[in-house]
């Protein structure tokens, strides 16, 4: 290939990359650095959707700022446990993506048969994609240490399943 052609081809590729990047930024579909679900990248659009869905479906119990119900380690008068925080002060980040997804979709009873909880199963209320978006939003709020720990738990869980 002649030098002129090489320069032209290189410029074309660089231009396409730049156009794609701009288009992705404009549409909000860029991957969010460090946030994955089931090992796949999560886009900023998904996180924005998840934030809206969290506010509508989860915040009333788990807190607007993911802080959980007050005194969440103490049992309620109903004998059930309060909603725990989803921020780094809680234990959500100890659970693999698969567990978080199943708990959200099927309720806590999905992973602990017979367990009585105030948390409903969201199957039928949220699609799988919406559940994924909510969880991606929650994960996006964690500090690096918690996010890295949870990614490792998820990787180990997938490796063992």
């Amino acid at each position: 290939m002649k030098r002129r052609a090489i320069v032209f081809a290189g410029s074309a590729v660089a231009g396409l990359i730049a156009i794609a990047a701009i288009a992705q930024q404009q549409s909000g579909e860029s991957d969010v650095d460090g946030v994955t679900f089931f090992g796949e990248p999560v886009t900023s659009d998904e996180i924005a959707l998840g934030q809206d869905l969290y506010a509508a479906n989860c915040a009333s119990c788990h807190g607007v700022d993911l802080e959980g119900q007050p005194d969440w380690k103490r049992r309620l008068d109903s004998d059930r446990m309060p909603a725990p925080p989803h921020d780094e002060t809680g234990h959500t980040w100890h659970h693999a993506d698969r567990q978080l997804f199943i708990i959200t979709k099927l309720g806590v009873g999905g992973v602990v048969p017979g367990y009585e909880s105030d948390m409903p199963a969201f199957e039928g209320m949220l699609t799988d994609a919406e559940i994924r978006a909510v969880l991606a939003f929650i994960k996006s709020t964690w500090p690096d240490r918690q996010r890295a720990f949870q990614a490792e738990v998820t990787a180990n869980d997938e490796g063992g399943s």
Partner: protein
Amino acid sequence: MMIRIPKPHLSRRAFALTTLAGAGFLAMPRPLHAVGRARNVTALAFEGDALLVACETLLRSDDGGTSWAPESASGAGDILALATHPDRPGRVITGPARGGVAVSDDGGRSWERGRGGLPEEAVTAIAVAAAQPDMVYAAVRGDGLWQSEDAGRSWTFTMDRPWLADAERDPTALASVDLDTGMDGIWIYAGTEAGLTRVPDCFCRWQNVQPGNAMDALVSGGAPPSEAPLPAGEPIHALASAPSAPETLYAALPSGVWASRNAGVVWSRVADGSASAVAAHPTSPRHIVAALDGGLTQSRDGGATWSALAVI
């Protein structure tokens, strides 16, 4: 100081006869019935090869039960709970009935007592985290599970009491079991008056003991493995996990000493009688000691055969 039988006031002849008889009596191996009946053994633990017995006070034997010394400095009345860890030789943590904890780092010669944030109620069970020897868990009566990251000096509330048979239950026994929860953590088992339960050490929720972890059970979809739980309706007075064989658990119940070789899924009785405490040797998991029918007895083959220990 060793425990000695006080000498009564006797004539010289009677004293000589009594001494001879007593010497013969003391030379005889005795089952520990006398000790057990006089002392309500509430907890047992190995500290290295030494055996610790918690009752009205703390007793220690460094010679396999031939002689016993009271750790009187721990004297805070009855002791309800006792814990050690093989990676912290000399450290003993007790839960006196009057509340709080007492910690010794020199095998019981000196003690540091305090609450460190614990409520006033008694600590009914203590366990040291299997893989973190400075992490200690304590169950407080009527309250819940607390944890300390500095070997019992300060405490934070961690988890409410387990919910079993339609009520909250005080853990009467705790054991940190070094088996994977599926969440990059290990399990804490709790015995209660209403049976056995466990919680991952992220403290998400108490749950029944089942094969593998909860996710395994959900995903497998196949026929569940056979299970043989501990007898229903019996309180669990003590749990012991052998650090060198974490799948092996022992439990002390009113119906005897029970053993499980698969982390509490299948249990079988290895000794009949009323058991109030049990301990497993840190490096020889088949070496166990139990407080049974008011005496101390031990097995070196995982409970297949038993022999009485010497008199305290």
